[in-house]
């Protein structure tokens, strides 16, 4: 039912910058930014866990602000600068220190929560390059992980923060 509805709807044209690239898309006004990224732009790095703001798997930044893309409309992204997990590794495929430390510390199992955690962790470190363990735990409280028990995620973020400070 929803699917046929979408097809008949009048689409809105939206211009954005995503991970540094100018990207325009067409979307229906009730479509979330998460659905636009995944279904219209085939950028499936950003995950959907709940669709209701509870899990953080869909975390992206919009104009530098960390948000759940499932709680943002695609049309609201007009003129905005968006960062997703696809933009974290360098152009030559060099992993971001956070990504490298996640691998080193085995901070993921199924990996569904990982893109959201990476984006949230990068946002945390941008505001606070030297967080305490407690600050990391609070900073990532909006990202749920059903597999790892969080311990290795926290270790990976603290380790990446230390490396990024000394870089």
């Amino acid at each position, binding site marked *: 039912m929803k699917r046929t509805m979408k097809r008949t709807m009048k689409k809105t044209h939206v211009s954005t910058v995503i991970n540094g690239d100018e990207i325009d898309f067409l979307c229906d*006004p009730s479509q979330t930014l998460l659905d636009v990224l995944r279904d219209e732009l085939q950028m499936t790095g950003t995950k959907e866990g709940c669709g209701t703001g509870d899990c953080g798997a869909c975390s992206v930044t919009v104009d530098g602000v960390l948000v759940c893309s499932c709680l943002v409309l695609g*049309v609201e992204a007009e003129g905005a600068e968006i960062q997703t997990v696809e933009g974290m590794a360098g152009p030559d495929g060099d992993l971001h220190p956070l990504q490298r430390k996640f691998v080193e510390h085995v901070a993921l199992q199924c990996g569904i929560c990982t893109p959201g955690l990476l984006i949230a962790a990068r946002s945390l470190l941008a505001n606070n390059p030297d967080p305490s363990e407690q600050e990391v735990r609070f900073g990532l409280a909006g990202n749920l992980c059903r597999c790892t028990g969080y311990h290795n995620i926290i270790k990976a973020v603290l380790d990446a923060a230390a490396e990024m400070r000394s870089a």
Partner: protein
Amino acid sequence: MNNTQYKAPASVEKAIELFSGAEIGGKLLAGGTDLLVQMHSDMIAPALLIDLKKIPQLRAIEKEADGYRIGAAVSGVELMNHTGFCTTWPGVMDGVKLIGSLQVKGRASVGGNICNASPAADSVPPMIAAGALATVVGPDGARIVPVEDIGVAPGRNSLQQGEIVVSFLLPNQLAGSGGAYQRFTPRTEMDIAVVGVAVNLTLDKAGICSHARVAVGAVAEKVLLVKQAGDALIGTRVQDDATDNLVTAVRAACRPIDDKRGTREFRVQVAGVLARRVVATALERAKGSGQNP
């Protein structure tokens, strides 16, 4: 089934024109953290979404002669990043900081928290305790509404057809003022208050309480301003008898639901405990607060 339309007007006048002109099914959109969840679960399918975030007045945080004015669509994170507001209104910030995760606060506004009219909304008790006044504008002009008069029942507010909350004024307080909010939740983060209590009080130079307002959330169909609880402190040094009277007044005002998250008895009991705790914090803050802001 309707096709949703989206409009992002740049002025209050334009927003009201759209909102009152939209026959039915027009919805105001601030941060969307309630609205999009309701749309996702097919509770609502608005014909027109009116995004308020492009209206400068709704996004401003300003120190005016009478106090701090915050736009209704200012996000939690924007408030957290505003040092002046945070130091002046720590009790309000206790509530704002509890709204969901950082991701949620990146979008969620105090205006939406209040207009959504959940009796458990965390910024509402401290805004009421602060004596915050909403500027509401509609097709018939502007009016000033105390925050305690906005929520009516879960999901229902007192705004009239076509009305929009533009901003909130948090009136200046005297030196020696302090506020605090605490809630009880089964989990420490990302949960809905089972009870929440806020206080805002002022001590004069002699240490006597000259002003106190107490508000309690999640114990009735809306957040309650408990006048008797504030009055129990006024004229006292906010010590044993006074705080006992405050606790009694808070408990007497509670008329909570009984559900799996908290029984009636539990909610009433906890409301009193939290009232005592927030008063202790507010006193510390009042003693530490310097000049009249």
